């Protein structure tokens, strides 16, 4: 199964919600997706296109465009194509459906994305902070307008 076949199959099935689907190279394909279709597309890719391994799930903050883009990298043990799905969310209230029912290992990825970016994953089984302490909840440290960095450091040295 090569990259062209995969992207054609996806575009045929979800032509309304897939935007800018393209083949980047022999082993990389990417597409922008509407937020409400994410579980459906992941289920289809896992069942029909042999994408059985979620490599990573994270987010990127774009303050000027007022969006947070959630990025999924989904790979496969049967063929060599890696799929990149990007989902644009509004920056003031980013919400998306959790894909834990499809890929179980998205659990901690989504918890980390939640604590660092504030993306709320609906129907997540256990959406609580992963490594950050509770008092940092709501600050979203990896957003680009975060201002809570320490500014009085190393007073013992100067």
């Amino acid at each position, binding site marked *: 199964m090569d990259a062209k076949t995969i992207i054609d199959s996806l575009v045929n099935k979800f032509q309304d919600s897939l935007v800018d689907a393209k083949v980047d190279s022999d082993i990389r394909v990417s597409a922008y997706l509407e937020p409400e279709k994410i579980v459906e597309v992941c289920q289809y890719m896992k069942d029909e296109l042999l994408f059985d391994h979620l490599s990573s799930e994270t987010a990127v903050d774009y303050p000027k465009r007022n969006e947070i883009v959630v990025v999924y990298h989904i790979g496969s043990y049967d063929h060599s194509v890696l799929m990149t799905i990007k989902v644009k969310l509004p920056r003031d209230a980013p919400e998306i459906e959790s894909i834990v029912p499809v890929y179980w290992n998205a659990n901690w990825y989504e918890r980390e994305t939640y604590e660092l970016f504030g993306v709320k994953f609906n129907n997540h089984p256990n959406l609580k902070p992963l490594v*950050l302490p509770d008092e*940092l909840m709501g600050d979203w440290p990896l957003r680009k307008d975060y201002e809570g960095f320490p500014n009085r*450091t*190393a007073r*013992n040295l100067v």
Partner: protein
Amino acid sequence: MDELNDNETVENQEGYVEEIPGVITTTSMAITDFLKKTKAQDIINWGRKNSLWFLTQPMGCCGVEMIATGCAHYDTDRFGIIPRNSPRAADVMIISGYVTKKYLPALNTLWEQMAAPKWVICMGDCSISGGPFYESYSTVQNIDKMFPIDVFIPGCPPRPEALLQGFIELQKKIMAKKDHGTDY
């Protein structure tokens, strides 16, 4: 028993027990305070400085050097410096890495669990100033405001010889009665 105590010893406003005629009552705190003014404190300090058992509590890559220092090659036992696993049995806590906001409560708990007299050694650039995590959102800065630190050992990470030298400096401070672990 409670009645007996109520009848014979009455606590005054400062909290000290009133003297019973013919009996000298004292407390361990009073004995300690008295000994601090005498030559006996030198002997006590000699014993303390030769049994600086440190807490094996690695927090970063400096922790690897700390464990290496405690192993056979550097043989810290000759100075009485022995790694201990329990904070109850340890005298020295080595802050060996960056302190995150999430880890600070656990570090405080370990510090409170240690029995006095106790000392802190700041090991590595991360614990001194933040190191490469100088302006991170999740690290605690100015750790010397939270713990009475006696010795700072710079380095990234410091070699085991540097940690040994830090221990020896701490021993010198204890003998000179300049350490922060005891109020003289």
